[in-house]
């Protein structure tokens, strides 16, 4: 009876709201692209060298390792968890991979990288088991393993350093090689981003990650294997951090036990700037990767623009804050638009 009483305009109002919401949904990533343009274009005008191929390649290369970690982190954050140990996992994997290559000069490239990935995977598995089976907050667990993994790293390294001279050329070339002008490391990162993005968007278990983050209790009730999925995300995050560690060796050539110290905050910042909700349930890996690119680009721009060294950190901090503020204001406007366009149209 009330259904017939609902004014005929209601559906159109609702579709308007929906169109707005999908549009703004896309804007979240678009916003970062715009922000990137706002940073790059003025810099390029001041210093045209900034957009030469070598410079662009460097930009992408610099961002690629943080972007990789941000992809893994996104999987975890979407389920309302966080993995603070990624910096330490990267460090451990980087050192062990480098040492493996140095100790076994004949190691095939892929095998060595696989070794690094396996190290990361083992760390991720430990995190995942503790969080999923112990049923304890991931922030505390991974803060704990942040220390533990780094400690193990130090213990194994014993103050040693692996130098480029001890690493096989195949590995070092990987760090600088290009395919069609695009650095291989960037391509690897892109592949990981695409795979993760498709998985999150179009696969059932990917969607279940959003469900878990959105409402953990409801996820259990809906029959989603919550513990298993969370374990998987931590394993994946560890795996990606392991890969990033191996690539770190290829990129920088010199590795000691301190590699990647403090990287976790950069990664979390990239994820947040990329529009992934820190309390789970929404966000994309593309956004997170773009977030990493934006943060990296800001750092580079400040150098290129010859901003005095002492000002750079303050400015990038301020820019990070403005990025999340703008994002939040957009979201608030969307909420208000939804409210006024939808209003009392429910039957």
């Amino acid at each position, binding site marked *: 009876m009330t259904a017939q009483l609902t004014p005929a305009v209601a559906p159109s109002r609702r579709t308007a709201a929906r169109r707005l919401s999908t549009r703004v949904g896309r804007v979240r990533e678009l916003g970062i692209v715009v922000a990137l343009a706002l940073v790059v274009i003025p810099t390029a005008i001041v210093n045209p060298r900034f957009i030469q191929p070598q410079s662009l390649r460097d930009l992408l290369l610099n961002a690629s390792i943080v972007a990789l970690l941000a992809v893994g982190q996104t999987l975890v954050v979407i389920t309302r968890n966080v993995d603070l140990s990624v910096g330490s996992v990267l460090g451990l994997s980087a050192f062990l991979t480098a040492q493996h290559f140095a100790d076994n000069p004949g190691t095939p490239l892929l095998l060595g990288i696989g070794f690094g990935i396996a190290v990361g995977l083992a760390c991720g598995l430990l995190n995942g088991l503790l969080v999923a089976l112990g049923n304890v907050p991931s922030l505390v667990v991974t803060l704990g393993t942040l220390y533990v993994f780094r400690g193990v790293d130090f213990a194994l390294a014993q103050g040693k350093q692996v130098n480029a001279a001890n690493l096989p050329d195949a590995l070092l070339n990987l760090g600088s090689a290009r395919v069609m002008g695009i650095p291989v490391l960037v391509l690897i990162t892109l592949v990981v981003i695409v795979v993760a993005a498709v998985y999150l968007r179009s696969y059932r278990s990917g969607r279940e990650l959003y469900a878990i983050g959105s409402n953990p209790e409801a996820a259990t009730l809906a029959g989603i294997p919550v513990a298993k999925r969370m374990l998987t995300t931590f394993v994946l995050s560890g795996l990606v951090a392991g890969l990033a560690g191996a690539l770190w060796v290829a990129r*920088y050539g010199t590795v000691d036990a301190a590699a990647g110290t403090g990287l976790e905050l950069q990664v979390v910042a990239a994820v947040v700037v990329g529009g992934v909700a820190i309390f789970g349930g929404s966000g994309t890996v593309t956004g997170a990767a773009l977030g990493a690119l934006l943060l990296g680009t800001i750092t580079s721009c400040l150098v290129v623009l010859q901003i005095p060294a002492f000002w750079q950190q303050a400015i990038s901090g301020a820019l990070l804050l403005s990025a999340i503020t703008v994002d939040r204001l957009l979201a608030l406007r969307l909420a208000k638009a939804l409210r006024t366009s939808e209003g009392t149209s429910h039957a």
Partner: protein
Amino acid sequence: GGTTKDSAGDQTGGATNAAKGDPNAALKEGLKITFLPKQVNNPYFTVAQKGAEQAGTAIKAEVKPTGPSDAAASSQVTYINTAAQQKQDALVISANDANAVAPALKSARQQGLKVVTFDSDAAPDARDVFINQATSNEIAAGQVKLISEAVGGSGEIAILSATPNATNQNAWIEVMKTELAKPEYSGLELVETAYGNDDDQTSFQKTQGLLQAHPNLKGIISPTTVGVAAAARYLSSSEYKGKVQLTGLGTPNQMRKFVQDGTVKSFALWDPSKLGYLATYTAAALASGQITGAEGEKYKAGDLGDYTIGAKGEVVLGPPTVFTKDNIDQFDF
């Protein structure tokens, strides 16, 4: 009123050593010496530590390496206090911050510890002797000379330093600037000083930034082992290889590859293990009463031979070695 800078003038300076040393006293056996680098797990200090341990074996002293895992200004203080607690005979330390460690060192000295600083000094009144790897002048002038030779005497150059607060770095940079003001270097122009924070990745990216910011850059001086390695690594894989020259202070093992592939023509460094060796010998000499740290005192430091304590309690290891393609393979550290 109030406590202002001007009203606080009671700073004391210079080591005060009342007692006189006995040059003929034998080195005591079984001395307990704490070796405290800026940071454990830092390859440079790992090499220095080897030297210290060698010296320890030679004089039958117990050398105990310890230290923080981060190079923050204050993190050494706990270890200094602990050494005092443990009633060690001497402390060999490379200070992260000349002032931050001073109060703790002073109180350790009051409790009878002999304090020898190496590599990076603490406030002079807080230690007995400072083992200087080379004088600031020697190092800085050497670096400027190397880069001038590499770039052919003219062009823009930049410096890639460690942290903005590193005492020795800043001292060298100051000398480099005065050096560059000399007529023979009038062709060189220092355009920027960047800070890589002694972090590989940061140094790497700062190198990139320097090259983009200064299209006409001809050379980079990086007087820090981490920085010079990162910069070399970046240059060797970029299109700037061979076009932009690099020199600095680096270890031969780290730099070998880049010297061989032509990215770097020459760089310099002293042997860190000799530094550790000398510092430990000096500590033993102090603890045995051979010397007190007063200017002019002489002592023998094992294989390294005789040394004399200079002004302000400083001992200089000797001029740094310059490494080139021709000699680099003779070194392994």
